[in-house]
């Protein structure tokens, strides 16, 4: 069973993303949720996930910092991080991909958009730190 961590300060957004993931074929996954990047990082340190789906604009620790921390951690760096945000323009998308975000999707997202992004995840090569 895959473990998927969803980080977003909005409970509604977490529920919406979870539902999109379930529709996209991840219905048998274990979903864990965090209201900001700091909590997400603590949860990952306790038990790593197979996928992190994160918002950018969150209190305490934003999604960009969470991404940096994950990718700089020897233990967590292989976890794919999918950013779903309302504040992404083409320049920001490139910046986040340079930080090794697996993909960056702009809100509002649909199940089809998430499904399409995750389809390419299965063909991704293993990351090196």
């Amino acid at each position, binding site marked *: 069973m895959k473990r998927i961590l969803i980080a977003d*300060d*909005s*409970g*509604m*957004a977490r*529920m*919406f993303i979870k539902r999109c993931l379930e529709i996209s074929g991840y219905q048998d996954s274990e979903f864990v949720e965090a209201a900001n990047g700091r909590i997400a990082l603590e949860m990952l340190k306790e038990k790593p996930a197979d996928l992190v789906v994160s918002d950018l*604009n969150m*209190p305490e620790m934003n999604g960009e910092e969470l991404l940096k921390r994950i990718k700089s951690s020897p233990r967590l760096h292989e976890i794919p991080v999918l950013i779903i*945000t*309302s*504040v*992404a*323009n*083409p*320049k*920001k998308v490139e*910046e986040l991909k340079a930080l090794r975000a697996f993909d960056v999707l*702009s*809100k*509002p*997202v*649909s199940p089809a958009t998430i499904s399409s992004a995750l389809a390419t995840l299965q063909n991704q090569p293993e990351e090196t730190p």
Partner: protein
Amino acid sequence: MTATTAICQKVMEAVSETFETMIFTQVALWNSPPSAQPESHRDTTPAETTEIPVATETPSHHSKCYWTRIPVLSPVEGTMLMQIPASLAVEITKNLYGWMDDSELTETVEVDAIAELINTISGRLMVLLLPEDQSFELGLPETSEHPLDYLPEATICRFASGVDTFSFILSGSLASL
């Protein structure tokens, strides 16, 4: 087409895309009389809606409203604010949480849904207003049941969704984008 109309057209694009994707609901621009404007913004210029399809049905009277605002921190400073009747907030929340019983629809859940809605609309709108290579930063949404602070130089765009109407308001330097 006036500058205000052009901005409202972009707001319309951001609002309708968000509503249609997230809650499968269509919206239309609504041409209201000045007396229907939110009380704290009556002295501002109402948006012109020439050349844009407008709703023709009479909106319902609504007593309780949510006021949700999100600060724009860069590259310009301003505020985006949405004034939405509680009846529409309930409908939006029900659409988002399709599995939820009416008894579970608390005010906290409604506020969370509206905050996520304005967050998504605002981000989409900034992408539409700014050049492709321009980054921007938004603050966190804040919701109240009472009109929030007076907003100088506000541009008000009004919309109809079913029998309800709601307003999306831009203030500060946003109107100059």
